[in-house]
Structures are given as structure tokens and as C-alpha cells.
């Protein structure tokens, strides 16, 4: 059996595409403390782009600079080629980490108001809001005030308000935080649908598997710096793929085919696992020698490194530990 684990089919990002967002050398200090230190990001139009890092790494500050909520102390940012993001506000939808709606507003009014902020006429916003609410199972709540909704429902209303004006670029700051597993799944589907329609989606997260499952490209951010920005596949390929061999026997002539530093693990008395880099001679040659040496192959797979391994390699153990702690904290919340 020859498999490649941990990968999924993603839309092709091959070929040069115009950039939805471009940032070079972004720097931001707060009270003398460096929050973001020379961030470079390039987000192609139509991509799903993740900004991955632990809490306090500079994700929110970076997003706020990209959106023009705050100005960088140094560096440039361009959104659809415009260095003043508010100039292209109608093309952008933004869901901040700290969700907030006016509690006295009705759901459709809240969505229409968010659309109006982006230039959508109120009447049209309300009509679209009703459609969106019905389409997302909240038809019964159209005339309810926000204060009468559950937290999850209110979050959905805000999410719909972010999309009501049909933006070309959607920016989500920690969109999965506070959502249960079912709603996280729904949001993942929504993000994929947006990308399928050609919308560029950027989201920040401290949960690796969201970035790994969804993103074409990621920026890994730690301590205000971006040590890596680019394709998820390329990030993973920074760590060589490993061969995972499962054999029945532990000894025999076939052992000569394995490199000296192959790691051995056993499962019960019948299975032995061996992990080692792909030999220079290639998989086919290795396979041939194992068969000839009667290794009793139960399985053989090539394991590509996951994004987590890549994150550890790129950002370091401390940042990875912080990321895991944040994710565990988020899960427990």
C-alpha cells in the first residue's frame, strides 16, 4: 500500500494571479513595544489565506493594519492595489475577533446596517439579510432583536452581515473561536464556498488544523515576525517526507535496506514500525530489496510532514507550545 497522508485537494494556485493584499515591511509599535516587526504578506485573489500564530503574536494588529483600522509605523500595505484600504471598503468584509452587534437591533436591521456601512442601500441590505437568514436556518429570527438570540446565533448574524454586500475580500479574525464543532464545520464549508465563487478569504487562527484543512497559503507569525509566508504545501515540504514501514519480522537480510538511523517502534508482538527518510535510491528500489529480503511487509507509506511539524520547524518549539496551549484553551472554552 502506497499512500500519502495528511494532504487534501486544494484549488490550484499555480500561475501568477493579481494580489488582493500585499504588505511589505509592516511595523507597528504600541507604547514602545514592538507588536509587528516587518511583516511581508502577499495574498493572491481568490485564495484562502491563513495567518497562523499563537495569541499575542501580532495577528490582529497585522489584520487591522491591512484593513486600515490602524496605520503602520513603517512599511506599505495595498488592498486591491490601493494603499488606503478605506478607499476600497465596499470590496471588503471584516469579522473582528471581538464580536459585537447593537442589542436592540433586529437581525435583518443589523445585517442591513453592516451592509450600509459598506455602501449597500438599506432596503437592499434588509432584503438580502432576510434571504441570508432564511438560507442559514435563521428565518424564524428575522424580526428578533439581537439581545434575544443565543451567542452562536448572534455570531452567525454578524457573519452574514460581513458578507451581505458580497465583498471580493473577506477578512476573519479568529473566526472559529467561540463556535462549537458543528458551527465550525459550517463555517469551513462557507469559507470554501466563498473561495469557490472567487472571493479571497483571509483568516487568522491559532488552530493549526483549520489552517491546514482550508488554506492554500499561510503566513506563520510569531513574536510579530513572519518567518514564513507562502504555500501550505511548500511549508510542509520544508521537512523531508518520511517512510513509514510496517513489517511482520524484525530481523533478516532486508534490514540492510534500511538506513542505520531508522527509528523502530513496535505494536504488540506482530507489528514493527520503522521510520526513516526516503532513500536516495528511491522507493521502488527499497521495496524490491524488502520483498527480496522477506521483510513481511504489512504496510508502507510515505508520510508528508504536517503543518504542525512545519510550524515547529519554522517558528520554533516555544511558539508551537504557545499555539497548542491557545488551542487547548480555546477548546476548553
Amino acid at each position, binding site marked *: 500500500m502506497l499512500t500519502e497522508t495528511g494532504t487534501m485537494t486544494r484549488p490550484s494556485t499555480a500561475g501568477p494571479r493579481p494580489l488582493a493584499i500585499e504588505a511589505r515591511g509592516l511595523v507597528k509599535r504600541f507604547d514602545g513595544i514592538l507588536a509587528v*516587526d516587518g511583516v511581508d504578506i502577499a495574498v493572491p485573489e481568490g485564495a484562502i489565506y491563513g495567518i497562523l500564530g499563537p495569541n499575542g503574536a501580532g495577528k490582529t*494588529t497585522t489584520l487591522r493594519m491591512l484593513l486600515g*483600522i490602524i496605520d503602520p509605523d513603517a512599511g506599505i500595505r495595498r488592498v486591491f492595489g490601493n494603499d488606503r484600504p478605506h*478607499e*476600497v*471598503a465596499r470590496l471588503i468584509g471584516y469579522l473582528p475577533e471581538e464580536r459585537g452587534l447593537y442589542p436592540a437591533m433586529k437581525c435583518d436591521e443589523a445585517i442591513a*446596517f453592516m451592509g450600509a456601512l459598506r*455602501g449597500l442601500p438599506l432596503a437592499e441590505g434588509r432584503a438580502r439579510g432576510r434571504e441570508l437568514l432564511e438560507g442559514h436556518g435563521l428565518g424564524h429570527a428575522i424580526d428578533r432583536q439581537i439581545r434575544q438570540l443565543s451567542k452562536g446565533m448572534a455570531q452567525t448574524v454578524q457573519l452574514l452581515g460581513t458578507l451581505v454586500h458580497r465583498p471580493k475580500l473577506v477578512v476573519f479574525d479568529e473566526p472559529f473561536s467561540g463556535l462549537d464543532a458543528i458551527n465550525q464545520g459550517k463555517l469551513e464549508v462557507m469559507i470554501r464556498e466563498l473561495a469557490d465563487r472567487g472571493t479571497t478569504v483571509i483568516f487568522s487562527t491559532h488552530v493549526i488544523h483549520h489552517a491546514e484543512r482550508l488554506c492554500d497559503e499561510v503566513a506563520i507569525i510569531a513574536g510579530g515576525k513572519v518567518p514564513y509566508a507562502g504555500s501550505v504545501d511548500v511549508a510542509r515540504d520544508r521537512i523531508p517526507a518520511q517512510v513509514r514501514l510496517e513489517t511482520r519480522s524484525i530481523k533478516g537480510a532486508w534490514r540492510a535496506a534500511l538506513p542505520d538511523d531508522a527509528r523502530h517502534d513496535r505494536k504488540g508482538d506482530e507489528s514493527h514500525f520503522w521510520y526513516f527518510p526516503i532513500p536516495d535510491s528511491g522507493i521502488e528500489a527499497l521495496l524490491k530489496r524488502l520483498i527480496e529480503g522477506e521483510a513481511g511487509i504489512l504496510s508502507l507509506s510515505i508520510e508528508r510532514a504536517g503543518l504542525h511539524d512545519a510550524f515547529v520547524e519554522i517558528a520554533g518549539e516555544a511558539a508551537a507550545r504557545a499555539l497548542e496551549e491557545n488551542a487547548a484553551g480555546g477548546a476548553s472554552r
Partner: protein
Amino acid sequence: MSETTRLSRFEAARVVARRDFHAILFSRAFLFFLLGPLFPILIGALAGGIGGQVQRDASTRLVAIAMADANAEAMVEARAGLAPQIGRALPELAITRSPAPPEEILRETGRNYAAVVSGTPAAPVITAPQEAIAAWSGPIAMIAAHAASSETKAYPAVAEQPVATSRAAERSERIRTAQAGQLILFLLMMLLAGMVLSNLVEEKANKVIEVLAAAIPMDAVFLGKLVAMLGVSFVGIAVWSAVGGILAMVAGSALPHLPEPALGWPLFVSFGIVYFAMGYLLLGSLFLTIGGMAATVREVQTLSMPVTMAQLLVFFLAASSITRPGSPMELFSAVFPLSSPFAMLARAAQSEALWPHALALAWQALCVVIFVRAGATIFRRRVMKSGKAGRAVKAESSVTKPI
């Protein structure tokens, strides 16, 4: 949606203003806001009533006549004869038949004599505290002189030649109008400043501000909020004016009469409205800036206290310079943005010149723009510092730095 990719600042401000205007107008807070002026009026009326009673009790005009019956009656008659000519300059007289010495009559419970006059009309003796002696010995001497004389004096008729007012009277009268205008302006602004603050507190509590800041420029957010509150305040003023008008019709001539301001009532009232709007916009933008500087709702309330106190000082500055038009202090209060609306309204009551108002309004409008822009900048710098996590980390350890 049109092809342009952003709302103009004014369109954006309109979206925010519209939302805020509706939200405030249909809230319970607005009802309390409308009822707000009722409380100071009630308290003022109560305090005035009590104060008046105390004043009446304290400064009685009743003088006891402790003389032989014939002399006492002669004194009362003499007073009645003089009253049409001298009126309130004379004390009220009451005949007492108490045999007690004058000092004891003054202390009698249930009476409230300012002085006791004994002796005879030819040689009256006044017993009273020093101030009462100073106040009443002259009028008592006049009454006694008339009581002692058997001749009936004839008073010549004084021909009357009335004029509208003298220069001195006009100026002193108009000061009352200026004071009343300033006081109303101040009370309205203090009421509304509180509304701006509670609106901002609500905004912070709802965490909507980042959604707004991402979509439209922050100064448009500020402007929208200020305009909404101004609209709400005009609704409030319209309601209060209507109620006040009805009360005025009911009370009629019982209401105090204010002299006509130098620019005439229509122009004075128009300037009052414009200066109120300017004063409110200046103070409101200052409050919004304070909101920008504060990280929590409690901080907003704490920081607003010094501004409220400062506003009182500004009011006193403008009020104290009313009587000295053209003095350096009056000029300063007309130029200093926060006191300018008060000082200029006082000018509208006292001076006919129009050009200073045009100049002042242009200056105040410029200050509003500067204040709003500065507030928006401070807000962007201080409030949008970092995400939730970032703030938590900073709070936990001030030495936490990015790796």
C-alpha cells in the same frame, strides 16, 4: 451598489448618525433625557420657595409701636398718609399693648418684629439690632414727625415724562437676558454631554466600534455620532420648548419678564440654537476623545469628571465676563473654543454688531473639525492597540515582549 469603492465621509457619517438617532430616540434613556430638566426645575422651585420663605422670615418689615394708645394711633395714621408717596420705603407698623420692655417685646415668641418703637412721636426711641436701626430709624423719624405735627401737608403733583429706558438701565437689563441665555445653554449642554458619554459607553460595551472602524474612517464615525446626538437634542429642545410655551401661556404675566436682547428676539434665539449646536459639538467631540483614551467603561466615566468640572469653570469664565464687554477676559472667553458659545451668546444679548458672530461661528466650526479629527486619531492610536489576547498578555505582564 454603485461602482465607487467607498462611501464618502459624509455618507458614512450619515449611516452612523441615522442608526444612532433612531436607537436613541426609541430608547428608554431618551424618556429620562426628556424628563431630565424637570428635576432641576422642581428642585429650583422648591429651593426658591423655601429660600423665599426663609428670606421673608429673616427680613421682616414689621415694626412694633409700643406707645400710649393715642400716640400709637397717630403713628399708624401718619404712616398711612405717607404710604402713597413713599410706599415700600416705610415699615409695616403694628401697635403692641404689651407692658413689657422693648427688648422683651422683640423676643416675644409668635411675633417677628424687626424693631420696637417706644417713647412719643416727639421723642421716639427705636430698639432693634444695629442693622434694623440703620434701616428703619430714618423712616420712623419721618412717620413720627408727621404724627407729631397737626398740619396736613400737601404734596405737589409730579408731571410724568416716560422714556423706554435709559442707557444704564438698558445695559443692566440686557445682562439679565445674557445671563439667562448662558444658563440655558449650559444646562442643555451638560445634559447632552451626559448622553454622548452614555452612547459611547454603550458602543464600548457592544464592541461594535471595530466593525465601524474597519468600514469607514473614524472621523466619520465620530461625526455621525455627534450629529445623531445633536438631532436628538433638537428633538428634546422642541419638546421642552413646546411644554415651556404651553406653561408660559398658562402662567401668562406671572412669568419673569426678560428684556429684549440687542439683536432682537428672533436673531437672539437663532444664535442661541447655533451656539448651542457649536458648544455641544465641541464638548461632544471632547467627550468622544476621552472615550477614545479610555480602555474601559469605568475609565470613561472617571476621565469625564475633570472635563465636566472644567466645563463648569469655562461657564463661570464666560458668565463672569458678561459685565465687562471688550475686557481681556471677555475677549479670551470669546476666543477660547469651549467658552466661546457662551460668551458670544452673551454678546448677542448686549451688542448689535453681527460680524463678531460670523467670525466666532467660523472659528468654532474649525475647532469642531480639529477636535473631531484629533479625537479620531487618538481613538485609532489608543483603542485599537491589539487583539483580545494581546491586551490580556499586556495586563498580565508589563514586561511581555514579542519574541
